[in-house]
């Protein structure tokens, strides 16, 4: 029973480490339904970690019992192993522990580091920004004196929304409202929390191309989601065009561009955003969305069941 479980989990882990993320990042439906796609990515990340650590644990603890919960209990209570314990069992146990510690440790570390950087940015902003400099369409935002058209928000317990004077000069009121609505959507839906695990695991697993892919896809999807939320709150004749014009003005202003070659990181993501605003595709059908969400659920259930089911039958 146990070796088959370990093998199945290992196969699942391999699928989630390469073909599944590759297919999901190539697929075109996510830009029609960023929410469903974000759910899928979170499921891929969680199921991937669960299955690889699970596979190692199941194999490493095999001598102690027929199912993982049972073997785990015997191992924790220092029961003698039922079968001879070979070197590869110890290796698998150690790898499982190291991997689990690394994934969780890097997650905590990223969280601490981003929190610290945010605090530093907040301190600098409070120092640099003159109070009472807010502008009409974005009454509660801070105005930063700088010619580059920049807007950003700093999430956290005390979120801040910042517009540069270059941004205010470059955009009209309707466009500014669109920008503010977009940033506010990030804050309200806590997009930084969706992105954080992928930032952490890309740092933890630099050899895994899927970690890169997943990070970039999630980063782009939260932007699309924020665009969608912003559109819903905008009034005016053509909010889609307003938001698209705001994006183009923001990248085209002074200081908005970087020398070619220095980027390639965001290459194309902005264009995708502008295209889906100007020429919106049909939103995903209910069946399509249901399918994506079922797939995500199945992805999470599969390793969980593989780990727990042998104990129940």
């Amino acid at each position: 029973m146990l070796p088959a479980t370990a093998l199945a989990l290992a196969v699942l882990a391999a699928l989630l480490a390469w073909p599944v993320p590759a297919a999901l990042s190539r697929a075109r439906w996510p830009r029609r339904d960023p929410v469903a796609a974000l759910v899928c990515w979170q499921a891929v990340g969680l199921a991937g970690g669960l299955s690889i650590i699970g596979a190692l644990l199941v194999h490493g603890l095999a001598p102690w019992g027929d199912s993982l919960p049972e073997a785990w209990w015997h191992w924790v209570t220092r029961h003698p192993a039922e079968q001879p314990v070979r070197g590869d069992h110890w290796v698998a146990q150690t790898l499982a522990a190291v991997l689990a510690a690394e994934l969780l440790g890097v997650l905590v570390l990223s969280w601490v580091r981003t929190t610290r950087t945010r605090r530093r940015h907040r301190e600098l902003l409070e120092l640099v920004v003159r109070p009472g400099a807010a502008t009409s369409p974005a009454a509660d935002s801070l105005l930063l004196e700088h010619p580059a058209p920049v807007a950003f928000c700093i999430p956290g317990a005390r979120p801040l929304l910042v517009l540069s004077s270059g941004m205010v000069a470059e955009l009209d009121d309707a466009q500014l409202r669109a920008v503010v609505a977009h940033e506010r959507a990030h804050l309200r839906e806590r997009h930084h929390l969706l992105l954080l695990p992928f930032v952490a695991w890309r740092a933890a697993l630099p050899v895994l191309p899927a970690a890169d892919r997943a990070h970039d896809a999630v980063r782009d999807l939260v932007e699309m989601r924020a665009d969608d939320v912003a559109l819903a709150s905008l009034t005016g004749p053509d909010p889609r065009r307003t938001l698209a014009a705001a994006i183009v003005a923001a990248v085209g202003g002074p200081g908005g561009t970087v020398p070619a070659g220095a980027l390639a990181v965001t290459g194309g993501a902005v264009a995708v955003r502008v295209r889906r605003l100007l020429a919106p595709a049909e939103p995903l059908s209910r069946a399509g969305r249901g399918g994506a969400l079922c797939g995500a659920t199945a992805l999470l259930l599969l390793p969980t069941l593989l780990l727990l089911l042998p104990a129940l039958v």
Partner: protein
Amino acid sequence: MASLGELERAVMERLWAADGPVSAPELRDRLADRGLALTTVHTVLSRLEQKGFVVHDEARPRRFAPRATREEHAAELMSEVLGQAADRQAVLARFVGSVGDDEVRMLRALLAGADQDGAGTR
């Protein structure tokens, strides 16, 4: 009672306005309209030192000076915001990232041509 953040800003304003390093009692006098106790001024100064905004010399009494101008701090912040640090988007959500000149031209063309042809393939 003014908030500490607001006091910090007021102290920085005075330090930036001063010709050179200023001692804490001098600073209290310059903030006379607020009626601050000297200990409060010291508290604010040490907080600002912790944050790296203020430095002091070894004269007696100590004199305090800003580490950088307001513009330099603004530039420091902007270089991080505009930078390409790997986890930048996790730290702060920027409206759009930086793109190359070619892409800006392409995006402008896209926006201008949106009325005739919108079917974006890839």
